[in-house]
């Protein structure tokens, strides 16, 4: 019995399970996911994310929960359990089919399983702490250690279909229209996981600091910081994906629109949807023109700078032109300067993700991904 347990402690197998080995080794022996698998996992993940967005709405509207068994808690915990059961079923099926345990889960989903387990453990601690000490209120609910753990767990497991698609593109397959659906849902769920702790501060999600009706003390400072933070979040994910996945035209528009619809569950404010739609269309045009996935470093870095300019130009331009909310109250220096700062953030992120010259270490690192 000890021998059968210690088989799980082999270092090589552990590295294989957590995909810490050379990508060619992973692609050779690991199970592969099908479209139906990716789609099922993506929808179940979205169920959990929708539950979380609605839970945040509930807290923002009615304050702290009266019980740990709210409908939203039940939804996202149930969805996470479903995702775990689904992965367990797949893993066991592949084991019975002859795969080694470290190869039983499809490429990209080992971290998802780890994320689900982490989410479950952290969730139990969170529910216990609520039962003993009550519920956090205000910004504490978004920054408590257990809640941050939940967001991190969702980030890990929601990004499974993205990693699966990266592995497919590594093998030379392209992203078809049918596989685009789970990919987009996964990107949106992953974006949501990073957005949760900050949503109330992000100008294009929860708080349009620049708009007259939202004018507040220190609003200009918070607004510019919000622009910088939201740029970092969006461009961090977008650039990571663009560097590894060749996206069909229109994908960025779809990602942005679905993401804005999801955040609308919390904010109940549809004003951002047309803004994200326009930003998405322009970003897709920028991608078609600049071809950031072509391998040329300057195209990638320029894309990193251009998309934030488009994002925030449309945001400010929309309110200036329509006058919705009383237009913007930021001075010209503030809103134009924030666009420049956003471009700098996007460029820096692209710069960090793309070395100017390829070295042996870079080739080795790419092989690990």
């Amino acid at each position: 019995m000890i021998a059968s347990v210690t088989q799980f402690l082999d270092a090589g197998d552990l590295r294989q399970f957590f995909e810490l080995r050379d990508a060619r080794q992973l692609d050779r022996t690991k199970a592969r996911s099908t479209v139906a698998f990716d789609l099922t996992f993506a929808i179940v993940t979205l169920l959990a994310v929708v539950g979380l967005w609605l839970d945040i709405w509930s807290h923002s509207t009615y304050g702290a929960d009266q019980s740990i068994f709210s409908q939203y808690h039940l939804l996202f915990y149930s969805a996470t359990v479903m995702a775990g059961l689904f992965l367990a079923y797949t893993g066991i099926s592949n084991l019975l089919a002859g795969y080694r345990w470290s190869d039983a889960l499809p490429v990209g989903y080992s971290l998802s399983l780890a994320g689900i387990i982490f989410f479950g453990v952290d969730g139990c601690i969170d529910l216990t702490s609520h039962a003993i000490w009550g519920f956090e209120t205000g910004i504490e609910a978004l920054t408590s250690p257990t809640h941050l753990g939940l967001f991190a767990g969702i980030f890990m497991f929601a990004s499974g279909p993205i990693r699966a698609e990266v592995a497919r593109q590594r093998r030379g397959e392209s992203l078809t229209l049918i596989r685009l659906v789970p990919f987009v849902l996964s990107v949106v769920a992953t974006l949501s996981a990073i957005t949760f702790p900050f949503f109330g501060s992000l100008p294009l999600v929860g708080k349009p600091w620049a708009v007259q009706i939202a004018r507040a003390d220190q609003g200009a400072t918070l607004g510019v910081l919000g622009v910088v933070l939201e740029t970092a979040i969006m461009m961090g994910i977008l650039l990571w994906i663009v560097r590894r996945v060749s996206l069909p035209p229109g994908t960025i528009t779809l990602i942005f629109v679905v993401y804005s619809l999801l955040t609308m569950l919390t904010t109940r404010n549809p004003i951002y949807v047309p803004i994200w739609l326009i930003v998405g269309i322009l970003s897709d045009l920028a991608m078609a023109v600049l071809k950031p996935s072509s391998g040329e470093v300057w195209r990638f870095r320029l894309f990193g700078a251009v998309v934030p300019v488009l994002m925030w130009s449309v945001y400010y331009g929309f309110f200036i032109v329509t006058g919705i909310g009383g237009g913007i109250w930021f001075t010209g220096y503030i809103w134009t300067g924030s666009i420049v700062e956003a471009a700098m953030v996007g460029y820096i992120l692209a710069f960090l993700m793309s070395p100017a010259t390829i070295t042996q270490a870079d080739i080795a690192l790419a092989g690990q991904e």
Partner: protein
Amino acid sequence: MIKHFLLLVCVAVALLAPPTASAHGVQPAGTTVVQDLGPYTLAATISPPTALPGPVSVQIAPQQSFSGLVSVTLWLVPIGAPSPTPPPAHVISEQGSFVTQLPITGPGDYELGLQASGQGGSGEARVPVTVAQQPFGWVVALIPAALGAFVLIIGGAMVVRLRRRMSPRFNELLTSSMALCALIALVAFVATQLIPANVTLSLSGSPTSIVPPTP
């Protein structure tokens, strides 16, 4: 490439169709109670909110002539809860009327408190009301049904898999059905959150006049 782009933009625009839910639907019809408050007879027309939580609308109108002005105070609390700090009073003449909004958080039994005072005297009454919410029951039932079906399919598939080898096609079919169950649960849950439920308000008993203690 252009075709792909246009198709994806069309999908994005289709997703922009606003949710059918609106918290501001047609105001449901109200229930009118005519009540004596000391020497004054007032009619209170109570209308439920269009969604919960939301405000109960109460219109007060005199039902008899009187001289001078009457100060009217209203409040709405759950049955058994203590009376709140007296809210600001509304002042009306015999031709006057007013409408006020009293917030409630959810369905249940409430007590509408009415207090009137003027030159002719004062009076107080309690009107018991019940607020009920009728969600789309079948939509709510879909959620546990879909989630349960998902788990059942996994369980059934595991039993079959342990007994014999499963063809890839059959495995795909099972996975697709799991995806469908998850999608149904997702759509149903979002629908229950965004579509306004039918809120009704009714009198749950006879109004009670509060007689002030004799000095």
